[in-house]
């Protein structure tokens, strides 16, 4: 069965520091992978997606993610975090009929 794992429930990072959020997936075929961000009380916003091609994907708000098939990973990175990046981040993988399997989410706290 397909699954998406985000090992870190909570991450605290200083403003200006780099951020990396981990995501591992388990899926038999070539995965379609996504990262979403959710600000408090809001819906989910798509940060970036990977379907095929270049394994380094650029997204909005200065985020990027790298697909590594050998490690079944799709980690999200940002070189320099801003206070507005404090939010919950979800990794997701498409499976049948366009349904998404979500990870449990990683809460990011940004300190001054």
């Amino acid at each position, binding site marked *: 069965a397909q699954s998406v794992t985000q090992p870190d429930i909570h991450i605290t990072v200083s403003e200006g520091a780099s951020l990396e959020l981990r995501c591992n997936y388990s899926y038999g075929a070539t995965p379609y992978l996504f990262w979403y961000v959710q600000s408090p009380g*809001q819906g*989910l916003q798509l940060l970036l997606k990977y379907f095929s091609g270049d394994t380094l994907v650029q997204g909005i708000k200065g985020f990027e993610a790298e697909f590594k098939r050998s490690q079944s990973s799709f980690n999200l990175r940002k070189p320099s975090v801003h206070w507005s990046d404090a939010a919950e981040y979800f990794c997701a993988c498409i499976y049948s009929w366009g*349904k998404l399997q979500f990870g449990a989410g990683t809460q990011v706290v940004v300190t001054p």
Partner: protein
Amino acid sequence: DVKVTQSSRYLVKRTGEKVFLECVQDMDHENMFWYRQDPGLGLRLIYFSYDVKMKEKGDIPEGYSVSREKKERFSLILESASTNQTSMYLCASSFSRQEQYFGPGTRLTVT
């Protein structure tokens, strides 16, 4: 830009009431989804629809039903609301196996 709207941001209902949550998308997407989101449990799929009048159960359909009479509108119905249905409800839409676009969510409290 894709826009997915939900009828209410906040809703308070009493136990036993019938509750309708409505979702409208403006991008002619064929797929529409209803999720509930609870702390520590992430997003769980309740129902989805891949065409008008078509619906499929998700992971947690018990206590819910849905209706899709028009392509742009997908309704979630709680036939008899219970306190354990207090949650954040998120609607989403997508085209085929593409990314899903989410509405702002409805925070439902059942008292």
